[in-house]
């Protein structure tokens, strides 16, 4: 089933008008450093600085490795993230982010580097107990076009506060286009964060490690 359809259904079931995940902009004048290991298929590292609460600038490195054949992309990019719309509610927040950037990609089957562009969007909704996000990220070059769609639905067993540890159980569904992975990759994750430090880890339905760490300061 298409991830967007799943997300829409989940949002309706949760009584949520929009869907949430780690945000590409943490807070104004904040720096975000993030690294993700995606089940051997995707590895990404990013650094962003936000001069405004609605804008962050930075760059990253993304490696996509097909589990269907031997194709591999190593993409280094500069990117701008923009908060298109935020809804601040009494007990909830929802956001729409968009981003775009450009860089260079190594294409393994050609053994060449190419110019690559990227664009994406994220819509999220969160309270202190429920959380949902849908993210789509497109990487494009002459030799390839890969879109990664990620849905996350989270539940917190208790409400955390500023100085306490936040614990979340997250269900993640991810689809890749362009011959990286066949079908939807599901993962169950345990997410922990406190103040500016965030760590999550879990396993996919194929028993592979899915992990992410992030620091905001």
């Amino acid at each position, binding site marked *: 089933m298409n991830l967007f359809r799943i997300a829409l259904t989940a949002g309706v079931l949760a009584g949520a008008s929009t869907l949430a995940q780690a945000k590409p902009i943490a*807070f104004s004048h*904040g720096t975000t450093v993030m690294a993700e290991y995606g089940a051997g298929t995707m590895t990404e590292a990013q650094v962003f600085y936000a001069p405004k*609460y609605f804008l962050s600038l930075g760059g990253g490195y993304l490696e996509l490795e097909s589990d269907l054949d031997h194709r591999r992309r190593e993409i280094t990019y500069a990117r701008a993230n923009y908060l298109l719309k935020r809804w*601040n509610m009494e007990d909830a927040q929802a956001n729409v982010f968009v981003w775009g950037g450009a860089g260079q990609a190594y294409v393994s089957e050609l053994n060449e580097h190419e110019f690559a562009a990227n664009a994406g969007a994220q819509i999220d909704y*969160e309270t*202190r107990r429920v959380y949902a996000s849908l993210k789509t990220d497109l990487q494009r070059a002459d030799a390839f076009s890969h879109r990664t769609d990620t849905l996350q639905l989270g539940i917190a067993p208790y409400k955390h506060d*500023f100085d306490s540890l936040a614990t979340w159980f997250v269900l993640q569904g991810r689809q890749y286009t362009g011959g990286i992975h066949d079908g939807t990759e599901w993962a169950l994750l345990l997410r922990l964060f406190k103040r500016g430090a965030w760590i999550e880890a879990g396993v996919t339905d194929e028993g592979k490690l899915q992990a992410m760490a992030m620091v*905001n300061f």
Partner: protein
Amino acid sequence: MKKILFCTIALLTGIANAGTIEMKVYGLVCGFCAQGIEKTLRKNPATSDVVVSLEHKLVAISTREGQDIPDAELTRALTDSGYDVKGIARTQRSLDEIRAELKQEKK
């Protein structure tokens, strides 16, 4: 002489009582939100301490002796951080008292 004494006492009382500003803020749902707000408010030279409670949608600050931060400046600081201010009040309780009350509630 009496007038000067009265003014001095009034001023000192005012300074002693005007130290805590409590703000009700919408959109506070995670530690990152609170971290950003705390960082922004601590940059203000008039701020001496900050307490954030997600449970109460509360951002409270204490100001340094003899100093105040205008409502417009506080609203702008929180709006520029990406949050909505729903109310600002100057109160008598200290930040230590607020912390103690929050701690007591958790028990």
